[in-house]
């Protein structure tokens, strides 16, 4: 019984690892990032202190200061002063 539980836990863990990337705005003002995912460009607004989940399957993001980044999913992006730090 226990081994069954462990197996399920391992499964759920591996399933839980595939996550979307999270972009967090650490600035005091709202910012706009451009997300290109699945062939579609969309502008995503992030309020001060808010964070949004984008692109489960990988995407390109243009930061407020014009920097571009490719995200493969699962990253934590923090934006402060228009600059992005990826963790």
């Amino acid at each position, binding site marked *: 019984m226990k081994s069954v*539980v462990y197996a399920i836990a391992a499964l759920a863990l591996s399933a839980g690892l595939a996550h979307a990337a999270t972009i967090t705005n650490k600035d005091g003002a709202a910012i706009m990032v451009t997300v290109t995912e699945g062939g579609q460009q969309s502008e995503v607004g992030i309020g001060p202190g808010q964070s949004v989940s984008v692109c489960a399957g990988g995407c390109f993001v243009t930061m407020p200061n014009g920097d571009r980044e490719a995200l493969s999913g699962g990253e934590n992006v923090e934006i402060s002063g228009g600059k992005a730090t*990826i963790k």
Partner: protein
Amino acid sequence: MTTVRKLLAVLLLLLAPVMAMAADVSQQKAKLDGLGQQIGTIETSIGEKATDDTALVKLRISLDTFSKSLIDFGVSLRPRINEINARLTSLGDPPKEGEPAEAVEVSEERKALLEEKAQNNALLGEAESLSIRASRAIDRIGDLRRDLFTNTLFQSTDVEGALGRDVFETFARELTRATQQLTSRVQFMYSFRTSELLYALTLSLFVGLATWFGVRRMFGAFGRTGSGDAVDNSYINRLSLAFWSTTVPSLAMAAALAVAYSLFDYFGVFTPQTGDLTEALLVSVAAIFFIQRLANALLSPGHPERRLILVSDRAARVLVAFLIALAVIHVVDYFIGRSNEIFSAPLNLTVAKSLISSLLISAVLVMIALVKPFHDGESGRAYGWPAWIRIPLLLIAIFIIAAAVSGYIGLARFAAAQVVVTGAILATMFIGVQAGQVMAAEGVFPHSTIGTRLKQTFSLSDTALDQLGLALSFVVYAAVFIIGLPLILLQWGFNQLDIQTWLYRILTDIRIGNISISLIGILFGLVVFVVGFLVTRRFQRWLDGTVMARSRVDPGVRNSIRTIVGYTGIALAAVIGLSAAGFDLSSLAIIAGALSLGIGFGLQNIVSNFVSGLILLAERPFKVGDWIVAGNTAGFVRKISVRATEIETFQSQTVILPNSELINSAVGNWHHRNHRGRIEIPVGVAYGIKPRRVHELLLEVASKEPRVLKTPPPSVVFRGFGDSALDFELRCHVPEVLDGVEVATNLRYEIVEAFERENIPIPFPQRDVNLKIEDIEKLADAIEAARTRKGGSRPAAKI
């Protein structure tokens, strides 16, 4: 000369980072250009293969990998970009006007870094636009495939023309051409590439044999359980036998064929055409194999005891033959279709083979519908399928024939193919669902082969196994639908990626208004909670059984600590589980705030009991096992929970007492600091006996009883002059208050015996009755008269 060399070396050393940087960017640029060319090729081939569905699917897959490699490319630039950003930050901003100018090196470096960053940004931008191009191409493939599907389904064809005499000539010609191509290829390989051919053949043969032996070994055991001496033919065992004997060999076969194909491909045996042809051939072989296994599993003509659909022996044989015939017709049609595509045969050939195969399949369907598979046990008469099977089968057959004859060959072919493929998938799902149903039935799983084996290995109880069976049945249902439904949807022209996306959405992101629910998240949270719960229980057991038992901790304290640890662990597991499930705990705080008002009124009692329980556990006015008296209830404490405490009275009645009552009112505890207790035995002696002698005697009796404590010493109290006796009371202390009643009983026996020895009577209340009657003589006379009347001879009572 040497100085010049040295200078050159120093210069090179200085320039090395810059050159490395340049090399880096140009390398990445070259990589991206390669990717750009790749998408170009794919786009052209989409245009070329616009009518070939299989090729489009392959292009689609390659586009998916292409998109992934674009993202990977972008991610691979990240470390360098991070480096640049970090360096730029440490260099700081360029000096503003009026500020002192910085060193030339610094501004140079900044310039170089900014330039490189711009280049990297440009590369990323290019990758981004390539990814957009890839997505457009994917959309285009989707459109093309949809068009192809509708075209093939609803295009009317001239049937008579297709079935003309020249079709057979064309067919013969194409066949010769294909054979020639194949033989010439084989001859070429044989003469010029003998070693590769031999390698591929030997290795494939090896893989095939290994798979065959592996599957045989595995199913040797299954076969024995099915028909050996211990015949266990319960439905669940037949089902699992059917399921495993269908899926495992089929999957093994498919895997072996795939390995063989890739081996041949690896050794370069194939030309593109022969490769495609071989692929089609292998797919056909695997499909026939699967359907043959499936039909045998469902109907098992040789072993009536393993049959899942209970038809007669003869019908089982006939039906298996028909089902295999269906598979063969479908597969042959598929194979000819593929080879027509590969060798670009004329269209009328394709039309002709589709027409023939559709008609053949509908003919077989009619025959299956007309089989009489069951027979009546009593009369022995055979009877046919129930109407809900027979009529749809006939209707489908009629539909296919009608579509084919009226020229909608594509539609007829599609319907016929779906009958075979969807039918096979549905049959497999049927086995799965049946297995789930049987497993969920009460008491079935523990007695199945798997159940018995699990029982032996993990020593589980029947109840646990039964519950496991129920859980497993849900898993089986889920697996059947998660695997089966997408397969059917794929057959019906849905896109693989669409299905994947739907599934992903359903599992991770169900949106209701602003709330998004993730099934995987919830499942994960649940698993975390269960794990936390198990860990807590385990820790509790370890702490209680190993640590506290060995440090001789008082059982009551042990109980308190265990309970507190248990509640803390469960609360922690719940909190972690909730946050793992994606619930925002801060929003929970708001809910808690709103709830606190409700708690204030509605849940007042429960909360007060809960808090009282915590106080009881912490303060411990009594422990488990104590003899307490609370209000009208007296008895032993059996369990202290957070809401209520269980008390077992001396009559073995269990009283559940809310904790708040134990906190808010006085509770007597006989066992609180010690187990000592005092017993009192009142006794009276007749007037005239010397009180001091009684005092001595009582003390003597008490001192002889071993269970009476010496300190504090027993004492005798002369309580007073009663109505008929001098009242004494013997008071003594016992070390265990629970023995009090027994000791008191013993002492009373002893007191009675001692008094008897000393001739001390224990008086009982006496009453002197004085009658005051005036005419007592008259009363005596009346009695006398009554006696003489009766003739009595007894003398009258003297009054």
